[in-house]
């Protein structure tokens, strides 16, 4: 029943997307200048023509940066969240800094990272981490904080230690928050990786898109971007599936 309703719910969105694509196609055919505005069909054709370099070289390069960046963000974010939850002093000193770090326009200072770390993977990983770790820390920290005081007290009366309270109460409470964080972080880490590559790289979808720009290949600029979006959506959907398998109690707290 629920499935049925949600399917019907996405129908208006699908119709809108189809209309927008048709409009885009018509406009692009009218302008008839692929270097300014390529049509959706031209982009798909280009994607098919470029499939070998895109899928064998550039997609793996971007995915590597995304994966490493996401992993570091997760380690850093979860550690900071745990520390801030466990030690009030850490929360007081770290929280403002973490918030302030988000006011830094990462894209603007990213060229510096290329200066510091070169054209290799690490300058891009740094951009990814800077963009991604924030939602993870804040969301997971909020998750820990949302553990019910009464439940904590109940465990105390059973004689639970702080570590037992953390494992048996705080982690399960924070798990739905963790998945929200992951679903936010996946697309952001892909964007971060692409921005990093755009600024200076030897491979990757962001780099490829930029190279096509210099060749005035409009469809070639769009093709890797379409690929990036598709991958982001796919990964977010996988995360949602895992979430549904792991968490069966959402909304019951």
């Amino acid at each position, binding site marked *: 029943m629920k499935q049925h309703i949600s399917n019907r719910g996405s129908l208006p969105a699908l119709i809108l997307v189809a209309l927008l694509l048709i409009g885009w196609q018509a406009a692009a055919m009218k302008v008839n200048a692929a270097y300014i505005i390529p049509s959706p069909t031209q982009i798909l054709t280009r994607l098919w023509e470029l499939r070998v370099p895109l899928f064998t070289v550039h997609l793996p390069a971007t995915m590597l940066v995304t994966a490493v960046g996401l992993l570091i963000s997760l380690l850093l974010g979860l550690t900071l969240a745990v520390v801030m939850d466990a030690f009030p002093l850490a929360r007081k000193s770290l929280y403002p800094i973490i918030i302030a770090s988000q006011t830094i326009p990462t894209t603007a200072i990213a060229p510096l990272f290329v200066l510091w770390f070169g054209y290799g993977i690490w300058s891009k990983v740094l951009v990814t981490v800077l963009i991604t770790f924030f939602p993870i820390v804040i969301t997971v920290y909020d998750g820990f904080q949302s553990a*019910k005081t*009464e*439940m904590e*007290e*109940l*465990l*105390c*009366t*059973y*004689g*639970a230690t702080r570590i*037992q309270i953390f494992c*048996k*109460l705080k982690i*399960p409470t924070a*798990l739905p928050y963790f998945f929200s964080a992951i679903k936010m972080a996946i697309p952001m880490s892909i964007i971060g990786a692409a921005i990093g590559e755009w600024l200076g790289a030897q491979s990757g979808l962001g780099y490829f898109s930029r190279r096509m720009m210099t060749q005035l290949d409009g469809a070639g600029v769009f093709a890797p971007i379409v690929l990036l979006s598709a991958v982001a959506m796919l990964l977010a959907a996988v995360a949602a599936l895992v979430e549904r398998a792991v*968490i*069966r*109690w959402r909304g*019951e*707290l």
Partner: protein
Amino acid sequence: MMLELRGVTYRYPSEDFDTLQNLSFSVEEGEFVSIIGVSGCGKSTIFRLINRLLSPGAGEILVGGHPVERQKQYCGYMPQRDLLFPWRTVGENLRLPLEIRGGLSRSEMRAQVEGMLAEVGLPGCAGKYPGELSGGMRQRAAFGRTALTGSKLLLLDEPFSALDFLTRVSMQEWLLGQWQRHRQTVLFITHDVEEAIFLSGRILVVDSTPIRQLTEVPVPLPYPRERTMLSRPGVVALRERLLDSLRKQVKEG
């Protein structure tokens, strides 16, 4: 003597008056004693002192003849809301106090949990999630979890006040049956005069804040009890007297 308070004084840090002042009372082993009082009178504070969620400013609390500070899992505390962990199945919820105490193998824990589930009338519910149970079943599960702390002293803080009338009545009869079979020492907080009379051997009335003393009222009924006994003339008079004294406090407050 199961429980003894000797000259206990407590003041909440945020307040400028004592909630408990030099309070002494005791409960014998195997007794069913109710504490009644208007809301906000501080009766729950007495529980929070006994289970050590709060520490008294002065005085001593003894359970089984020993100060509570040096004991672990000496009392089973059941709060007003069932506080079943929604991410754990009913069986896993009951296992919680055993896990925290430690020292039991998985199969030993499973056996104890299965036995307790049968005891509280929820056989075969081990694999269900709390969300699948009705209000009365959830309270029975929570009672089973409290009983599995293995303590002889049970502190029940208005456990049935959130239930609808018919469920509440049947849960009272169920609890009385449990107690008549096992004769744990039960200290029961309620603001329902009829509930207190039906269940307990003696009633301790909170008639002022700060609580300096509890007025003891014996219930002139034998065990086992029937609900029809509540209409005996002596009992009706007792109920009116208790209601009157509570009502007076509400007016004064």
